[in-house]
């Protein structure tokens, strides 16, 4: 994969020190390329939030390297780090995403204004971002005049306004019903298909499945990762017919995917317990 937007290399994050130190991340390596959506799953306390904070340059690794658009977050002065965050990274949370006293367009334009752009320019970019997502009619609405699903879609628009290419989403569908949540995912997926890099933390497997790759964290380590799929090889429409000479039935492999590259040690010898994977 070329054009990596996020690259984390052997990243450790230890909270505290001495006997009470907690290894929140324990040697994690992860990349997200432009056009790619990666989902992170794992139980509470597995390090998902720490991972997201490091990926968003809200926190710095104890060891290892986090690069956003090729810049190591640990090498930057605080002011430059803030600028990197503002210009390159958008974050979508489960709730409390939008500022209540600002309209959708003002919310979306805010990061640009903070970055010194003119109000009219920010407004133009915001309206354009809403238009791309088919949300034109929301431009002048305040958050309390929008549904939860609409607010989340506006939050994704804001996360990717301007030159930002990395969107970090922390349970963005958590407070939504399943159909509304899918509408939000569809927007996130579409933004990634359009060239953004997305990192999605979720505990809903059905939503993680929208990603190109699903990474499992446990105790601060990546314990499993579904490999990246290639370029979209699936028919994009239901009536696509197979090429001449090809059978029309789907391949039987759908229920028996290939074994993972490194199969965990499964069976021990009688008399000994197999080591924990």
């Amino acid at each position, binding site marked *: 994969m070329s054009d990596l937007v996020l690259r984390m290399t052997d990243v450790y994050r230890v909270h505290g020190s001495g006997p009470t130190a907690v290894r929140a991340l324990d040697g994690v390596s992860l990349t997200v390329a432009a056009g790619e959506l990666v989902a992170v799953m794992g139980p509470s306390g597995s390090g998902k939030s720490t991972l997201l904070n490091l990926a968003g340059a809200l926190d710095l690794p104890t060891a290892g390297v986090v690069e956003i658009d090729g810049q190591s977050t640990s090498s930057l002065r605080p002011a430059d780090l803030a600028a990197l965050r503002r210009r390159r990274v958008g974050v979508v949370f489960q709730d409390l995403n939008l500022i209540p006293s600002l309209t959708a367009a003002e919310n979306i334009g805010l990061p640009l204004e903070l970055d010194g752009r003119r109000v009219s320019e920010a407004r133009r970019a915001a309206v354009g971002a809403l238009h791309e997502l088919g949300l034109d009619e929301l431009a002048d609405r305040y958050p309390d005049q929008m549904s939860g699903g609409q607010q989340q879609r506006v939050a994704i628009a804001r996360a990717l306004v301007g030159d930002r290419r990395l969107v970090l989403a922390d349970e963005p569908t958590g407070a939504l019903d399943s159909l509304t949540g*899918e509408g939000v995912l569809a927007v996130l997926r579409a933004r990634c298909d359009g060239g953004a890099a997305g990192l999605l933390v979720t505990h809903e497997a*059905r939503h993680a499945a929208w990603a190109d790759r699903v990474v499992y964290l446990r105790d601060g380590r990546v314990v499993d990762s579904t490999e990246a799929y290639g370029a979209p090889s699936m028919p994009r429409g239901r009536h696509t017919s197979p090429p001449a000479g090809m059978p029309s039935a789907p391949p039987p492999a759908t229920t028996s995917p290939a*074994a993972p590259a490194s199969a965990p040690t*499964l069976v021990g010898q009688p*008399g000994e317990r197999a080591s924990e994977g």
Partner: protein
Amino acid sequence: MSVRQSLLALLREGPRYGALLKAEFEARTGGVWPLNVGQVYTTLARLERDGLVVGDGTPDDEGRIAYRLTEAGRAEADSWWLAPVGVAEPARDELVIKLALAIATPTVDPYAVIQTQRGATMRHLQELTRLKLALTAPVDAPPASIGVDPELLVLEHRLFAVEAQLRWLDHAEASLAAQSASPVVQPAHTVPTGGTP
């Protein structure tokens, strides 16, 4: 059982011959469960034997006999629509059995079983999701008609079922971890070390 009830439900909408029943069943269930015509006619014969349907008698130009519901057949079809489907299915899922055995088998690591299964199940869920996205394309238009297309309805049932398996695997793994973290308590009914009843 489901073929029998489905045919009754279709015949409730009016008389039909076997090939048409087959075609309608397949169209309405998104082609997920293909029927063969022989199966349809065998089922119709049993329904006729049980007095739930009756052949119209006179074949049409192409020699096909239409079937229609009897009074009893209509009552059966009505009660099927009104009653919930049984939810207490017997649980004999290979994965459930495998994991239960893994936990009780000292030479096998149940965590490894869970991890291998979860990877495979997750990949399958991704494939199903891609099928779903292909069905609901274009992506730009937020889903307006999800759940209406029968093929999508059936596919989404599968998505939820596969998700449920993943959640169950996660839960089983967490339970195992919690259990191994706490001291093992001997159950009260352990065989006593002496004496006879």
